[in-house]
C-alpha cells in the first residue's frame, strides 16, 4: 500500500484536534461548510460530512482523538476537498479485514470503514500497530 504523502501542493484550509465529542460536531460542520464553498450539491455535502463524522468518531472512540487536516487541491484535474485524519491510536492490525464489508470490531462500528469509503470519491488508509492510523478521504463535484 502506498504511503500517504503530506508533501502536496494543496491549500490548507485548517488543522483541528479532535478531543471531545463536541469537536466531532464542530469539525464535521466545518467540513460541510467547505463542501458548500466548493459548490458541491446537497447530497455530496451530506456524503462527505457523514463520512468524516464516522472517521472522527473512530478517532475519538479508539484512539483518544487525533488531528484533522482539511485541504483543497487539484486531483486529476478535479477541485477536491481533502480531509485527513491522523491519530496515534492502537492502529488496525488487519487492514484488509477492516476494509471488508460486514466487518465489525465488536465495539459497534460495523459499517465503519467500508461504508465510509462508499461515501467518498477517494479513500486512502495507512495504519501501523501501536503507532496509529491515517485515513484520507477526498470528495469532488
Amino acid at each position, binding site marked *: 500500500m502506498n504511503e500517504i504523502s503530506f508533501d502536496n501542493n494543496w491549500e490548507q484550509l485548517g488543522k483541528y484536534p479532535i478531543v471531545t*465529542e*463536541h469537536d*466531532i*460536531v*464542530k469539525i*464535521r*460542520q*466545518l467540513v*460541510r*461548510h467547505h463542501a458548500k464553498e466548493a459548490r458541491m450539491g*446537497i*447530497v455530496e*455535502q*451530506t*456524503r462527505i*460530512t*457523514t463520512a468524516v*463524522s*464516522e472517521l472522527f*468518531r473512530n478517532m475519538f472512540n479508539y484512539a483518544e482523538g487525533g488531528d484533522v487536516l482539511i485541504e483543497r487541491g487539484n486531483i486529476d484535474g478535479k477541485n477536491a476537498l481533502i480531509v485527513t485524519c491522523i491519530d496515534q491510536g492502537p492502529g488496525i492490525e488487519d487492514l484488509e479485514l477492516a476494509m471488508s*464489508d460486514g466487518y465489525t470490531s465488536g465495539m*459497534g*462500528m460495523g*459499517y*465503519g470503514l*467500508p*461504508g*465510509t469509503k*462508499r*461515501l467518498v470519491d477517494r479513500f486512502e488508509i495507512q495504519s501501523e500497530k501501536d503507532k496509529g492510523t491515517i485515513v484520507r478521504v477526498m470528495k469532488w463535484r
Partner: protein
Amino acid sequence: MNIDLHEKKIPIIKIRDFLIVSIQVDMHDKLAIQLQSQILEEIEKTGAKGVLIDISVLEMVDSFIGRMLSGMASMAAIMDAAVVIVGMQPSVAITLVELGLEMPGVDTALNMEKGIEMLEERLSNYNTL
C-alpha cells in the same frame, strides 16, 4: 464558526396519546443518548402510545445517530409505544443507505401529518383487537 453546543434539552411535547420531538440541532453523542432516555422517561410518565421524531432539519444522520434512533424504537416498543421518524431529507436517506446502515424496527413517514395518521391507525387497530 461559532456553534452553540451547550446542553440544551430537546423539548418533548405531548399531544393526546403522542409525544412529539423535533430535533433542531446537530446532536453530539451525549445529547443523542440523553434524548433517548428523556423520551423513554416521558413515555413512562405519560403513557404515550406513540412518538413522532421530526428530523427534517437534520442535515446528516451518521451511524451513531442512526443506531440511537433504531435503538430508541426497540426500547419504546418494549414499553408499548411506537416510534415514527418523520421528515428525513432525501440526501440523508441516500447517505444512510450508502453507508450500509439499516434501521430495523423504525417506521418512517414523509411528514408530521402522515406520521400522526400512521400512529392513529395503529392505535385504532390496537383498540379493536
